[in-house]
């Protein structure tokens, strides 16, 4: 199957939850979804045996809130009243790869109290990625089988998340 066809299959599969889609590169497809729909979307990809989970990461948009003015997900988040007007969002990225094609599920999360459902029930291999996501970005992954730190020491201060933009590494 060609890369385009593979991507089209994924697009069709994910259509029920898609809030927007874009193709940043010829072999990539970014699908914008709501955080609440994550497990359903992953389940669909998994049931259709579409690709494998390549990575999970997140981005911090501190000071870049303006770039979301047109984003439906951002408006929905603002409407929910969970975000202070100047609170820059976090964006969780779930990469799935099938051959050359890469589909990225992108979800906006509020900065305070960011939470996302675990996909370990569908893909057990996500456990390490979810542990990393929660300690590095402070995104709570609900019902993940092992919520402990993966990389950071046990005595790492609570509420400090190294990969957020407001973390400035000072010499210890």
């Amino acid at each position, binding site marked *: 199957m060609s890369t385009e066809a593979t991507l089209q299959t994924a697009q069709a599969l994910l259509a029920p939850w898609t809030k927007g889609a874009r193709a940043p590169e010829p072999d990539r497809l970014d699908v914008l979804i709501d955080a609440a729909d994550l497990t359903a979307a992953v389940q669909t990809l998994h049931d259709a045996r579409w690709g494998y989970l390549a990575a999970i990461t997140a981005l911090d948009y501190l000071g870049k809130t303006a770039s979301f003015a047109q984003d439906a997900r951002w408006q929905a988040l603002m409407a929910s009243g969970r975000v202070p007007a100047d609170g820059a969002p976090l964006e969780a990225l779930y990469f799935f790869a099938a051959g050359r094609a890469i589909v990225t599920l992108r979800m906006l999360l509020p900065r305070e109290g960011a939470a996302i459902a675990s996909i370990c029930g569908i893909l057990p291999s996500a456990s390490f990625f979810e542990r990393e996501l929660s300690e590095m970005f402070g995104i709570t992954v609900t019902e993940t089988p092992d919520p402990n730190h993966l*990389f*950071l*020491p046990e005595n*790492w201060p609570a509420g400090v998340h*190294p990969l957020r933009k407001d*973390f400035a*590494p000072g*010499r*210890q």
Partner: protein
Amino acid sequence: MATILGKKWDEALEQVKTWARVNSPWAIHFNSGSCNGCDIEILATVTPRYDLERFGVKLQGSPRHADILICTGPVTLQARDRLKRVYEQMPEPKFVVAVGSCAISGGVFQGCYGVVGHIDQVIPVDAYIPGCPPRPEAIIDGLVKLLGSLQAKGEATAGEARHDSATAHS
């Protein structure tokens, strides 16, 4: 008379100690956050081509058996206490060799949040081997330099004992 014999005995003992220390130093290797580059080069020095055992150096698993602590890498948050503990467990006299640029100064990892610093901010270091990673020959060179300094130090101590016994005799 007893003191003279005692001094002679001390002198001989010092010489035996130095001989043993210099001819068969056992080493333990500790990775406190290295990229593996130095570790595989240390491993390469004990394999047939470089064969560190020519100098009596043997890699040991237990700090209790080791005379030399070979450290690689910058010290990470989680490795700091372990490095200290391994060092404290080693019997006296003990010597530390820092292998690689990051073990000496932090190298490229200076300023990373997971890095506490370099080896000599945590434990005292006796020999430094720069390189990223140093060639196995350079590691041997560093160890030979360290053993040379031990020999010189041992001879000086034995010399002192000899000097003392000479003054006691007169």
